[in-house]
């Protein structure tokens, strides 16, 4: 604030509320202060609206439109957005095809089913595994000396900052069958040479889940843990010290403190973190593309990879758009759950 502004008395017209909240009509043509404010807002918001029309509204509408066409960027097509003509309107055919579960279904449909299954499996495995590690880890970090907390937290957060491509390449090498660290460690422990092709043997499964999916899952968990960790640490710091002390005075064991005091108090945060983790797990692309390229035998062809390959490798953009709409609907439902969780107020 400049010194002069404090010396000048504020007249009634420029009291804070009135300046901030302006009348909405005809004010562009006003002269003086209010006119200047209107022109400023109008001058900034107009280009923003135009920009958003092209780079935000148009892509969303275009994606929805594409899903009702048999579209390829290689064909010329009609005058509006290249739709029609050689890129014919097919109605809901793309979505109908998705419901074809027979063996004779076209390849892209079978790949879609496999991708959807893979992505659902992945997301539903990531959330419990992530929480099972991050929650105890967060309270362990909270239990050590104040000076040591940032040291551990920063170390565990480092993978979040690492490029996913880097993570995929580093883990790809750790999981390498002949030269990898993991097989070397397993061989040491078992006392005999063990060679497991973590990312490339299609016959390896655990409980019907391909081992290659677990390989990507491990890399993803390793990279993604830091997020929830810091969210839980922040939440734990919000738990009143008196509550913990009361439990300890009553003779609670550390495990009981964690199980019956910490977890219930963190419930809202846990719910929110679960939904956020699931939303991002549904959209993982980099790790799948770099670590396994969807292989072996499409076992790790996640939905996002399926969309990318259909659209840009096989030029089936109409079909890819339809699949992306399915992904959108899944994320939308989860986001609505999330906003419900955010709205309900919790207290302890």
């Amino acid at each position: 604030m400049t010194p002069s502004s404090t010396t000048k008395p504020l007249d009634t017209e420029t009291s804070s509320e009135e300046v901030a909240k302006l009348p909405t009509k005809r004010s562009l043509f006003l002269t003086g202060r209010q006119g200047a404010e209107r022109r400023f807002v109008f001058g900034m918001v107009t280009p923003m609206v135009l920009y958003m029309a092209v780079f935000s509204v148009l892509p969303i509408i275009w994606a929805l439109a594409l899903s009702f066409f048999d579209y390829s960027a290689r064909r010329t097509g009609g005058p509006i957005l290249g739709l029609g003509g050689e890129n014919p309107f097919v109605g809901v055919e793309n979505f109908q095809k998705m419901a074809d579960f027979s063996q004779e279904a076209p390849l892209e449909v079978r790949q879609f089913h496999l991708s959807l299954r893979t992505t659902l499996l992945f997301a539903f495995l990531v959330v419990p595994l992530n929480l099972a590690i991050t929650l105890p880890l967060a309270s362990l970090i909270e239990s050590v000396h104040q000076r040591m907390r940032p040291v551990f937290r920063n170390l565990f957060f480092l993978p979040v900052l690492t490029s996913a491509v880097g993570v995929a390449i580093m883990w790809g090498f750790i999981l390498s069958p002949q030269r990898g660290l993991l097989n070397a460690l397993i061989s040491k422990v078992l006392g005999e040479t063990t060679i497991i092709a973590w990312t490339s043997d299609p016959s390896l499964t655990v409980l019907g889940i391909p081992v290659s999916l677990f390989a990507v899952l491990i890399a993803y968990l390793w990279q993604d843990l830091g997020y929830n960790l810091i969210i839980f640490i922040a939440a734990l710091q919000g738990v009143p010290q008196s509550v913990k002390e009361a439990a300890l005075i009553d003779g609670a064991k550390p495990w009981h403190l964690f199980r019956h005091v910490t977890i219930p108090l963190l419930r809202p945060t846990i719910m929110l973190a679960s939904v956020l983790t699931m939303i991002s797990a549904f959209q993982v692309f980099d790790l799948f593309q770099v670590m396994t390229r969807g292989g072996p035998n499409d076992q790790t062809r996640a939905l996002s990879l399926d969309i990318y390959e259909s659209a840009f490798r096989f030029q089936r953009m109409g079909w890819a758009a339809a699949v992306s709409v399915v992904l959108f609907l899944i994320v939308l439902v989860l986001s609505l759950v999330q906003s419900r969780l955010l709205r309900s107020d919790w207290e302890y």
Partner: protein
Amino acid sequence: MIRLRSFRLPSYLVLIAFSFVAAAPFVWTILASFKTGAEIRQSPPTFWPENFTFDNYRTILEDPDLKLGLFYRNSAFVAFANVFATLFTSTLFGYIFAKFDFKGSKKFFWYILATMMVPAQVTMIPGYLILVKLGLLNNLWGLVLPAFVDAFGIFLMTQFCKSIPNDLLAAARVDGASEFRIYRSIVLPQLRPAMATLGLLTFMTNWNAYLWPLIVLTEQDKRTLPIILTWYSNQNTNQVQLTMAASVLIVMPVLFLFALAQRWIVRGITLTGIK
């Protein structure tokens, strides 16, 4: 105070064990980058390099196809341009949404928030077609222009702008400051801490971005570092030690800088709870 002193030692043991797991991929990569080709092909693998060598780094830095300087420049341009664009639009419109009422402002704000729910995979196909129309394929601006407005940034800045006292703005108006001057000289300085956080998060996201650059940039010389790293890795599937050295050169320097600024990044995430 009782504190949880009684079970500190086990806590430390578990945390240290976990630290090894967290650090292992980095350590393993760095060690491998100093091994010879013969040693890397050995099975079972060695942990510590037997014949410590800098040859892999020399090979990479002398490789005429791997113009690291150029690719670093490409990545830096994209990341910095995105940071400037995002900081400008987020602070400006955060300020406007927080302090001005105009026709449809609430709906517009909710629309921007709602776009956060749309997965990148939905908009990438039409986004690509728009760039084709604009002639921005294989142009680094193609990674900047579609990301000019950042929904998360606007949301963050709107929250921060709400806490700027209206009297402060009113006083400046009485002094006859122009509206843009008020934004520049009064609003922006108040937002500095939030800008540091948003700027770092934006830089990190763009520096590490893979999917969109993969679609937009198909010419080698235009590519950014993550795409170059996968390309180089695919070129040298039998020379893992080279890929590991390339990973160190491409991933680690900026990771080190991020690590130094970690406090701000962590703050941004705990503040908003949004990834």
